[in-house]
């Protein structure tokens, strides 16, 4: 019920933004910046880039408020996730592949006594492998493991059926498992 209320609020805010209301834009930005930043960060793994992407997305919304059409889009967040994902993918197409941090020695990881360091290294490897996944598998994974997005919502963002989304996640996980075992 609260989520429905928020969606309705978002729709009202967007209608006011379309009339050039800065206050409504402020409320919308403050409400959603954090969640879209989290998603962008999962793609780009860099704070400054993720912030730039979120900023670009919101500024596009401000400059072209007519692109939001309440009749066509069920939820603001679903529609805006799609915009952020596109901006992240555009950025990734232009940049170099994710580099492993200097000094990371895979062969020594078992001998390191510090469990926290092991975990950090495993996470770094995981990020590298996620970055190497096919685009759709990576998007499915990023959307579904964001705690606030259900499979249904993630499928809507990607424009696929829920079953197709589940299949993408399964393939992504199988590939990640296989890849991570190589580092063992």
């Amino acid at each position, binding site marked *: 019920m609260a989520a429905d209320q928020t969606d309705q609020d978002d729709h009202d805010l967007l209608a006011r933004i379309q009339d050039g209301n800065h206050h409504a834009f402020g409320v919308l930005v403050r409400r959603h910046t954090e969640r879209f930043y989290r998603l962008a960060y999962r793609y780009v793994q860099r704070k400054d880039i993720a912030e730039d992407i979120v900023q670009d997305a919101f500024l596009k919304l401000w400059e072209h408020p*007519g692109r939001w059409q309440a009749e066509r889009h069920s939820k603001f967040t679903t529609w805006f996730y799609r915009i952020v994902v596109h901006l992240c993918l555009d950025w990734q197409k232009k940049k170099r592949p994710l580099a492993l941090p200097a000094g990371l020695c895979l062969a020594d990881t078992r001998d390191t006594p510090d469990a926290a360091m092991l975990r950090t290294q495993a996470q770094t490897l995981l990020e590298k492998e996620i970055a190497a996944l096919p685009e759709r598998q990576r998007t499915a994974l990023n959307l579904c493991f964001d705690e606030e997005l259900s499979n249904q919502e993630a499928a809507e963002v990607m424009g696929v059926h829920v079953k197709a989304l589940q299949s993408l996640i399964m393939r992504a996980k199988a590939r990640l498992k296989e890849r991570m075992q190589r580092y063992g």
Partner: protein
Amino acid sequence: MSDIHDQQLEAMLRARRVEPASPELAERILLKAQGRPQNRTMPLRQWVQRLFAEFHLPQPAYVLACALMIGFIVGWTVSVPHTAEDATETLQAQSFLYVDEDIL
């Protein structure tokens, strides 16, 4: 890490680290938006939708209007078939012409 199970992988995926955003990110976005004008040109599709919404009529009215339009179009485009009277008139005109030819 030699045998990674689903649960382990999911735990790792859920534990992915996200560096927190700058606390002033939202304010920075708002500040940038202050100096930017809005482009309020509506996409054609949306403009048409709004136009139809202005002249919203109940569905039977649209059906009636469409039926009338189709009727007019069909009426104007389909040629009227020849009748027996038309054929007789044509014959008479032809015989008149032949008569003229004989005289000449």
